[in-house]
């Protein structure tokens, strides 16, 4: 019995999951830096860069819920991004609905559509599901490209100003806080999921769906929950884009390349982890912007080559992403420390 207590104590201190106090301190410091960032950095293009990172990270975190945790590889999330952007924009510009409400409705609509997609597609396995999601997103893009009411290929414009009532600003700072707020909200939801029984169920579904069923997990139901949550937040991200750029059209908010990017951000950083998409977004945006500055714009395709080489390299050599690599390094250190501890305990 004594031995059991000892094991439990060691487990609590060097837990496999859960965050040590030193990590929590570092996170609080990081949060402080991030919140006060715009006060130190005034250049709009630098601010814009960070905003892009925050937005990419938020989309990655949203994708991660269905793709990284629950293991259902959706490559059509841009459908919800676009649906969110279009729904909130149409409600706001054509029907005068308050943007705060319109954005929420956009998110809920996306969640409902995800129910329809999930109901028909979740029985499909692996590749088939991925391809079905691509097909759905492409169909939605075709619909919006030909829908006059929604601006068809020309797109929709949003008014140039409005302040906090309309979530439209002339300076960058408010957008920074909006993007940060949305990211923190999405991360918070992800964290709560990870700590709750939902997190366990999602990961079980990803690892071994048959075994999960034998433990009472209704696969359809929980995949659907993950999908709905993911779609909701992706849609919110789309609305944020609309309010920031003040212009949307099918090629900017319904383009399949964006779906890939949402997944890539998580893969690069580490699927199934909280910090993965954030790290991945930072790295990816950095690479994108720097290749564009150095090589892009001349139509030479060099930025594409670098981007692509990166994707292939990650897929082949680092499928667990940055976080996976860091974790395996740390766990080796923890294992050695634990061996020393056990040696002393006798």
């Amino acid at each position: 019995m004594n031995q059991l207590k000892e094991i439990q104590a060691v487990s609590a201190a060097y837990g496999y999951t859960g965050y040590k106090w030193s990590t929590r301190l570092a996170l609080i410091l990081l949060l402080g830096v991030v919140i006060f960032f715009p006060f130190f950095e005034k250049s709009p293009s630098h601010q814009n860069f960070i905003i892009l990172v925050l937005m990419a990270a938020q989309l990655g975190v949203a994708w991660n819920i269905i793709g990284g945790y629950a293991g259902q590889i959706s490559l059509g999330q841009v459908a919800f991004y676009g649906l969110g952007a279009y729904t909130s924009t149409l409600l706001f510009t054509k029907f005068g609905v308050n943007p705060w409400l319109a954005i929420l409705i956009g998110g809920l609509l996306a969640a409902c559509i995800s129910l329809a997609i999930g109901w028909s597609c979740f029985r499909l396995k692996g590749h088939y599901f991925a391809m079905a999601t691509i097909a759905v997103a492409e169909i939605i893009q075709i619909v919006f490209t030909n829908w006059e009411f929604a601006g068809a290929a020309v797109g929709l414009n949003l008014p140039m100003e409005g302040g906090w009532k309309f979530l439209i600003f002339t300076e960058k700072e408010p957008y920074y806080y909006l993007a940060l707020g949305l990211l923190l909200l999405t991360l918070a939801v992800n964290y709560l999921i990870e700590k709750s029984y939902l997190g366990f169920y999602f990961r079980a579904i990803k690892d071994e769906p048959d075994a999960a069923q034998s433990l009472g997990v209704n696969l359809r139901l929980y995949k659907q929950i993950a999908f709905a949550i993911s779609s909701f937040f992706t849609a919110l991200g789309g609305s944020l884009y609309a309010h920031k750029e003040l212009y949307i059209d099918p090629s900017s908010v319904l383009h399949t390349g964006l779906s890939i990017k949402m997944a890539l951000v998580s893969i690069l950083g580490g699927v199934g982890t909280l910090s993965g998409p954030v790290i991945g977004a930072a790295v990816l945006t950095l690479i994108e912007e720097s290749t564009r500055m150095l090589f892009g714009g001349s139509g030479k395709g060099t930025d594409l080559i670098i981007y692509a080489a990166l994707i292939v390299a990650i897929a082949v050599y680092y499928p667990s992403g940055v976080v996976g690599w860091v974790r395996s390094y740390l766990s080796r250190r923890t294992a050695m420390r634990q061996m020393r501890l056990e040696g002393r305990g006798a």
Partner: protein
Amino acid sequence: MTLLHVEKVSKHFGGICANEDISFDMDAGQIVGLIGPNGAGKTTMFNCIAGYSRPTSGKISLNGIEVSGLRPDQCARVGIGRTFQVARTFHSMSAMENVMVGAVLGSRNVSAAREFGWQLLELVSLAKFADKPAASMTISEQRRLAVARSLAIKPRLLLMDEVMAGLNPSEVKEMVDTVKKIRNQGISCLIVEHVLEGIMPIADKIVVLDYGKKIAEGPPHIISNDPVVISAYLGDE
């Protein structure tokens, strides 16, 4: 009181008849062995009982409630637990987390599930692996983990699919002791086994399948001397 009632269950896959007209009963608190040569249809029977396959004809009920045709997760909630031939532990999780997936069925509270998880890991002597990745454990340890995990859903009937395969004699003894501990907690066990020296000594009853049909049913000492059973095994060697 009859716990499990299997009545004239048949299962066809296209042209193949994996189970043909199989009937047997299990009482609460029993350990029943399901044996037979390879390909006899034992795992198919498990799949039918646990909801992974729908019987082509026939009926299966647990405590009088019909379970044939339910989804696997529904069967689990009704009280049927199962392990698989390949342990299928959740490789991205630790041993404790594996057990907790089962434990949260009863109570969604994660810390209560963790408490329960410690008890189950103790039962199968895996407590020291609690925070180790499941993927880093040996096959026999993973098997015991899968058993602990299935117990976490507080089943009334536990189906164990070849839990003793490939184990050395001391591991077999450990597993046998675990099965007895499980039965002593009031959980009935239906066990598919090839390792006869593991199952025969502890079973209350043995059901023998061959080519999809039930060829014998009875206490172990009768079965082991039954000429029909013996020729079924020898005929396949």
